[in-house]
């Protein structure tokens, strides 16, 4: 990395005074995928991805050019490309961008870790993964026992001629265990909280807590078999108790995305869609019940999308998005705040060096209530508990959704009862959140590496902390027997 950084710093220093604004963003990200299935290692791609994005401001428009060629000549070519495009641009900018949207940022940020991922022992990791997958595949009805760890070491350097020099260094780990069982003429899969749903900023210390992972292996294996023998989820309206690992996607799809300012501005309409939220809704729309308090929070120690500055240089801080059910603020960085003329948050993010930043979620969390889970259950006379997302779909305004989960249990007379398979539910976002009637007192945090949007498309890391939640009178249904 030293040669790459020296090359780009040298060029940056020689040209920075030639522009109204110029910014360099260099990211070097090392990703390892390590997977075992039934005790055997699967092909394990690794990638050292290093590249540079250059942005320049010219006549009210910011132009972008990016390259993986970090030789001196390659970086010079990249700069020449963006200058040429800017010089030939004769159209009117969509909005008048300015240096006000690129505040100065100085400093460093390093994500929390006890032991850096660069020092991780792959031998120890392989032993853990091999043992885990063998534990999952502990009987003949388990046709696949898979263990998967994704490791990311990411380092980004921001340079900008408004005075910015900032470095962010992240260690991120995602873990997934999954069991696929075949019995009773059926095949069912059960995971430890969804596809890499357990993803956090941390180092290799996760390998010190393997016993809890091994316990999970046995649980999911047992539950996959139970699902094969379970009845189909019934079709009716009832109270719905959702676990935090399903709330993760509920928050993501029906709160996070509709609040993105660039969606509200229509930038996403050709692909990801629009939003039912209008600019005039901020400060007055009853989004959900009074129990609902949602924050944008870039600060939690281990959350996967914790950072110090966004890609514009804006310092990231916690803000309420929804308070007591009323929509207060959305998810838009400085450019979108200018375009909409309303305040936002520091969420102007790019997935990697090869994409320009756009408005993204980061950590979007639902505050807990005060009810212990046992009491939440006792209050439900007739309902259903669902856990762990396995399928999702929502309309382009972020209203009508349908989710499927891996696991469900009947709730009858305040107690958990028989297991149901293929549970699904559907509703419309505002209607659904206004039916939130109970919140647990304990939270859990889950996320994804793969929140996708924008054109050209980019996937980014997000997380959502939530308690267990009860929603009244939701339409649930199952698969086909």
């Amino acid at each position, binding site marked *: 990395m030293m040669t790459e950084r020296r090359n780009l710093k040298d060029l940056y220093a020689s040209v920075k005074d030639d522009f109204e604004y110029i910014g360099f963003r260099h990211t070097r990200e090392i990703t390892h995928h390590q997977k075992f299935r039934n005790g055997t290692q699967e092909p394990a791609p690794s990638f050292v*991805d290093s590249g540079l994005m250059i942005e320049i401001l010219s006549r009210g428009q910011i132009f972008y050019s990016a390259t*993986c060629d*970090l030789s001196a000549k390659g970086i010079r070519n990249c700069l020449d490309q963006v200058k040429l*495009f800017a010089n030939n641009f004769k159209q009117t900018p969509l909005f008048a961008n300015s240096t006000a949207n690129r505040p100065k940022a100085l400093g460093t940020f390093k994500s929390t870790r006890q032991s850096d991922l660069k020092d991780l022992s792959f031998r120890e990791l392989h032993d853990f993964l091999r043992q885990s997958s063998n534990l999952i595949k502990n009987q003949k009805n388990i046709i696949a026992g898979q263990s998967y760890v994704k490791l990311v070491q990411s380092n980004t350097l921001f340079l900008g001629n408004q005075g910015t020099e900032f470095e962010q260094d992240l260690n991120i780990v995602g873990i997934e265990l999954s069991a696929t069982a075949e019995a009773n003429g059926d095949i069912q899969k059960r995971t430890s909280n969804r596809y890499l749903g357990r993803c956090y900023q941390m180092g290799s210390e996760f390998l010190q807590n393997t016993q809890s992972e091994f316990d999970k292996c046995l649980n999911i294996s047992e539950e996959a078999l139970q699902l094969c023998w379970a009845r189909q989820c019934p079709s009716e309206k009832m109270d719905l108790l959702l676990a935090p690992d399903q709330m993760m996607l509920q928050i993501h799809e029906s709160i996070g995305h509709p609040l993105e300012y660039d969606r509200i501005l229509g930038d996403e309409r050709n692909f990801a869609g629009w939003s039912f939220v209008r600019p005039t809704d901020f400060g007055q729309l009853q989004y959900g019940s009074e129990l609902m308090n949602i924050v944008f929070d870039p600060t939690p120690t281990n959350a996967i999308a914790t950072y110090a500055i966004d890609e514009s240089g804006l310092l990231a801080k916690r803000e309420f998005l929804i308070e007591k059910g009323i929509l207060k603020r959305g998810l838009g960085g400085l450019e979108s705040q200018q375009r909409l003329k309303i305040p936002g948050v520091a969420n102007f993010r790019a997935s990697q060096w090869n994409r320009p930043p756009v408005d993204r979620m980061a950590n979007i969390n639902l505050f807990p209530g005060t009810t212990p889970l046992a009491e939440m259950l006792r209050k439900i006379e007739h309902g259903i508990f669902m856990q762990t997302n396995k399928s999702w*779909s929502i309309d382009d305004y972020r209203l009508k959704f349908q989710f499927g989960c891996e696991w469900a249990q009947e709730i009858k007379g305040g107690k958990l009862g028989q297991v149901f398979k293929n549970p699904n539910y559907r509703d419309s976002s505002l209607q659904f959140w206004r039916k939130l009637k109970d919140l647990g007192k304990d939270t859990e945090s889950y996320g994804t590496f793969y929140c996708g949007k924008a054109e050209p498309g980019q996937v980014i890391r997000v997380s959502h902390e939530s308690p267990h939640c009860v929603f009244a009178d939701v339409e649930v249904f199952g698969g086909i027997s």
Partner: protein
Amino acid sequence: MKVSKFSIYKQFERFCDQAFSQLQNHEKLNISLEGEDSLYLRFNKAQLRQNLELLQIRISLHMQSNDRESYTAFNLTSDETLNLSRLAEALIFLRGQIEIQLPDPHLVPIKNNGHSQKLASSLIPSALDSYKNALSDICEISAQVDLVGIFAGGLLYSASFNSLGQKHWFEQPSFLFDYSIYSGEPPNNVVASKSCLSGEQWSATEFSVDFQKTLNLHRLQQNKKIPIAPGKYKAYLAPAAVDEVLGVFRIAGLGYGEMATGRSPFLKLHRQEKKLSNKFSLQENFELGLHCPFNQSGELSDSILPLVHQGKLQQFLTSSRSAAEYQVNSNFAESDEILRSPEILPGNLDEIKIFQELDTGLYLSHLHYVNWSDLESARITGMTRFAALWVENGKVIGPIQDMRFDVSLYSLFGDDLLDLTKTRKTFPNLYLYDSRKLGGSHVPGILVNAFTFTF
């Protein structure tokens, strides 16, 4: 885009020679390349929202030694010293991984899968020049409407060389312009229509013609939206909607590995517990020119690979690794076993008369956010979007309020499939996450007897 068509090839060839020269006796190495040199233009309100000039060249190294294998990847630069220092780090990593592994029982030995070279030398200069005009053409032609979309054009590269002498190289200039037109006030009065152009050479004239067709479709939606009750309806899915149904195969579909581990939606088809219509045939077709014929290991599929023929399953997409694990024949699918260049064979419907053929029912130009709702029964869910029209006695009455559907592919391509159109449309690979990619699809529209809406 100033990269010479020869410089990346020559750099890659030199790099491979140097890498192979550093192998130890028992080591084999396969090096593949995927790259792009692209111009992206993102539009909102028929104005430029963001541009991006992007060069990214990723090379992936796959080493084998003593029945073990390891992988790594990094970016290629134009600086040989920098490339060699990255190679040195990569070799340390690859050897380190191999050292800690147990023998791999499903390892497929690297072998020489031959030579091929597709250079697009004569096309490149004029194609690249035409892409430079796209910004001004799009802004001018669509100036009076609210147009949103993405233009992507440039060169795509794919290669696979190995230490046994294999050399496959593929490069192609291509563009896509995926766009939509909007009018009306949100949320209840919005009208939207969508289209997609693709090819090798951008043409303002072709865009202008396509834009007019999209405007015509837009004009059919000016009446008030009609509410549709949940239930089953006769429906025509235009080619773009069919392409979106195929897109869900990226999540789960016709991969052998998925089938063997119980995760394929076509397990019942495989076990002959369910069937598809004898009007439905799906195959990979590399003669369409949408994708290079070799996979990242350099293996060459047959140019036509029937997957479903007249409703009967012919084969799953089977990588050589799956073939080794399950003792079946490989058809040299890519390691992820997803569709690369699929086509659905045509039927007998005349698309020009499609409203008459539909008679009374729904015309669906596109679908949105299609995902599996129940893999076991091959059920998908999603939403209508863009031009979704209610048609009565062959006449368009107006647009519908968007509805969610939930339907099994054993219905859509099975019992309820009435016919397919004679004409088909080619779609580029619109999966632009992280990079622009080769691939696409060639599909007709389909007329179905019962398309289920839920709410």
